[in-house]
């Protein structure tokens, strides 16, 4: 009888331990995700600071919103879309891959091709 009680109690302790461990892990995981995402967002009221690094009221509001949205299971992509719809692409440190930014993303490759072209011309000239 006593042994039965002991088993029940140990089960409760183990389950509680597992439950709280997962809970703490989930909170830490969310905080990590908030940090990762807010490091990619620009504080609109500060000079060159991310929302994560800033203590401005605007940044604190965005941090809260990001945390709530992550808790509600929204993806990082959805959260970024939500913020871009309201604050514009300016809020993102990393520009989106879209039609407007095609030149921005392709420019390094254009430079590379032109550079290679000149190297080729130069090497041909040296051979002669």
């Amino acid at each position, binding site marked *: 009888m006593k042994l039965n009680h002991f088993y029940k109690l140990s089960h409760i302790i183990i389950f509680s331990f597992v439950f709280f461990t997962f809970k703490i892990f989930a909170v830490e995981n969310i905080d990590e995700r908030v940090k990762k995402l807010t490091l990619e967002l620009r504080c*609109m009221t500060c000079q060159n600071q991310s929302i994560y690094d800033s203590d401005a009221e605007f940044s604190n*509001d965005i941090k809260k919103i990001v945390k709530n949205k992550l808790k509600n299971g929204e993806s990082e992509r959805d959260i970024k879309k939500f913020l871009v*719809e309201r*604050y514009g*692409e300016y809020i993102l440190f990393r520009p989106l891959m879209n039609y407007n930014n095609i030149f921005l993303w392709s420019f390094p490759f254009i*430079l590379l091709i032109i550079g290679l072209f000149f190297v080729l011309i130069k090497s041909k000239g040296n051979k002669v």
Partner: protein
Amino acid sequence: MNRVFILTPLMVLLIICVFSLAYLLSGKDPNKPPSALLNKDVPIFESSSLYNSKDIIKSKDIKNKKTLINFFASWCSPCKIEHPLFFEIRKKHPELYLLGFNHKDLTSDAKKYLEDDGNPYDFVGVDSDGLIALEFGVFGLPETYLINEDGKIIYKFMGPITMDVLKNEIEPLL
């Protein structure tokens, strides 16, 4: 011939750079990024009156009327600077609906502010948690939006409105 062959890509690159730079710098102030909501529908909102919590205003209530929305707070000093200009707007354009959103403020402070400086608004909505401001993409007070009869945001101004802004930017749109 060989020289032209080498210089052509360089010239093309230079032209691309000049045009890109001109495009990037054309009328863009990094301190005042353009509103993402410009020419888009006014965000959906619902707010109770500062004076009577049962009196509610919704986004659909401002349809079919030109509306000037101003986000302000009693703790915001630049708001105090632009405040008298709303009386000017009120006097010159009585047909314009003036909607003020009291942002993250104490009700008592907001009431006292409007009592001391006067209340130019047709309706003062409460935005105590800042969620309405978030929907409008507000990131600093004061901010002012002009909404046309179709419910589209046609103008946004960040910071305190001045007489110049009123005359040269807002009034031509009214």
